[in-house]
């Protein structure tokens, strides 16, 4: 069951890499939050109940409700066009995501005597690199933020893998999630929307060296 959920998580990345519309991205992020909820629920058996409730609440309320709702609000308020406008065609995106996944699988095979379920490692690292790839190839600031949220989800998967032995690290991961998301989404995405009317990274090129 755990592996099924993790693989669905991985598939959601492929879907995201060929998606065209901004709302699809938001929906996939919300779905990833729900998947993380179930993964955490199944995986974290040896953790005390209060901590588990905290983690589950974070995934379900923060990741799959609050953040998507806020992203929709930002999309609406700033009249962001519905197209994602990637620099590269979707087909290339799909190939690159595949290459990333295959590379992480190969990398996971080189790690000897592992205490970790390799599935976690593959899913987490591919999510991380796909998120970075998203940041590098999308034109809008809000898609950069979504790329960052994908990275956060990948980190969360990885922290669940060690969650039974070191629950402290899962809590730190949650702290990172909330802190960075609030800082990035709340304060600056709003402000940037006010100052720059159409939020596109091409407008953020005034700090130059010459």
């Amino acid at each position, binding site marked *: 069951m755990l592996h099924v959920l993790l693989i669905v998580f991985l598939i959601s990345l492929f879907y995201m890499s060929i998606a065209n519309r901004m709302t699809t991205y938001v929906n996939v992020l919300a779905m990833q939050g729900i998947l993380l909820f179930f993964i955490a629920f199944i995986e974290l058996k040896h953790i005390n109940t209060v901590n588990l409730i905290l983690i589950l609440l974070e995934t379900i309320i923060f990741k799959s409700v609050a953040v998507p709702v806020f992203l929709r609000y930002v999309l609406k308020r700033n009249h962001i066009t519905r197209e994602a406008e990637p620099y590269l065609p979707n087909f290339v995106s799909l190939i690159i995501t595949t290459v990333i996944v295959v590379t992480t699988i190969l990398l996971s095979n*080189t*790690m*000897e*005597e*592992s*205490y*970790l379920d390799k599935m976690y490692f593959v899913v987490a690292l591919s999510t*991380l690199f796909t998120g*970075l790839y998203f*940041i590098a190839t999308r034109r809008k*600031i809000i898609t*950069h933020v979504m790329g*960052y949220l994908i*990275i*956060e989800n990948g*980190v969360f998967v*990885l*922290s669940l*893998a*060690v969650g039974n*032995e*070191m629950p*402290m*690290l899962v809590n*730190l*991961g949650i*702290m*990172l999630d909330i*802190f*960075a998301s609030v*800082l*990035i989404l709340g304060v*600056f995405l709003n*402000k*940037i929307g006010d*100052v*720059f009317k159409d939020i596109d990274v091409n407008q*953020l090129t*005034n*700090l130059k*060296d*010459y």
Partner: protein
Amino acid sequence: MIVVLYLIVSILIGTTLFFNRGKAVNYTLIWVFIALQCAFTVYTCMNYNKTDSTYFTFDSLGIIMLLTATIISIPAVIHSHIYIEESEEKTPRSRATYFGAMVLLITAVSAAYLANHIAVVWIFTEITTLSASALIYHHRNKLALEGTWKYVFICAISITFVFIGILFLSLSFAKGGSDDLSYKNLLAHSSLLNLSWLRLAFLFIFTGFTAKLGLFPMFTAGVDAKDKAPGPAAALLSSIVMCMGFVGIFRFYIVVANTPLLHWASLVIGIAAFLSLFIAAVYMIKVKNIKRMMAYSSVEHMGLVMLGIAAGGIGYYAAILHIVLHSFVKSSLFFQYNQIYRIYKNKNIYQLGNYFKYNNTGAIVVLLAFISVTAMPPSGMFVSEFLIFRSLFESNQLVLLLVVLLLLTLIIWAFAKNIFKILFIPAVNFDESKVPVVSPWRSLSQFILIGGAAYLGLNPPLIFVDLIKDSILLLPH
């Protein structure tokens, strides 16, 4: 308990500053904080090598960095006071936010120096991102927003990287049998660390901390931030925050150096350091904005520091000496920058010039700081740079040494070209009639900092040498 007390009181002062917009209250509180910071520093020195509140140890590296931070924070507050009072767009709100963020930044950085647990360092690194972004956004215009956004975004990604590194570290330590990731415990059980996980952990932690250290690959965030932050805040960003990035990498490097991965880790650091030097050289030649030029010079110096670490031997000693001296000199250059800006109202090198005519004392500071930053002989940084070159020579990296020297020549040429233009060549279309008179006393702190750097470099007090030697004791020689 004392560290927790210090943190609580500082955070209280910070939040009170944030919410209380009264001028007298603001300035009283900031000086109360500086008094607290000094008292705390003295306390840590008196309790050398003791552990406080489980997660903080007053070890030699922490004490060196904390002393540096405290010394720099005093002039930083003085110059911030001048800066805020003379700024045209001052509002009670921006002043309160500025000082609140500054208190939070200095506190977080000090705590990160002393933390003995990698996760605690990570938490305080997060807090510095928050407080630094408030400082960078001080002017609240489009460009400041752009700089802040880039800083926040890149720092958020790099903090995530450090966290991933910590997760890999915990996997690497799975055999260790305990969940205690403090440096001491890791060192004691370094033979139990799984090397392939440790490799990944080091890559991620190193990459993450480079955003704070100002090294390749994440250096861009720091350059934009120093460009847009007010002068005194930029001085803090280019000194004490960089030291924090250094502490983050160095403490973990000690752990890695005690495993068979020593040479591999040195190679990684060496490549990043060399690329930083190369990038700094390329940009220094092109750059026309004096503040960005100073920021790229910081990238260059961090490259040198990490080259010292990568070379090993005497390089470890030289690296710590160099980063301390660089903090003093670069912060004084950024303090001086505000006086330059007051006269010319511009930071483009074409619009600056003939500085000796308008502000004699300030021009001498710029000249002395230039001599120090380019590590010309009478300055203290000459000694540390020379030791770094020696360590490269002793580790038989002759080709690297030659290329580094070549790059440094380019950097010195570019730096000198711009600084001498500012000092001696008249500016185009500059209206001389409205030049404000700047009191020479405002340059006093810069003289003290540059003089202190020369003293520490040329004739280091025995206790300072002992502290540095003690902090590199755990590295293989």
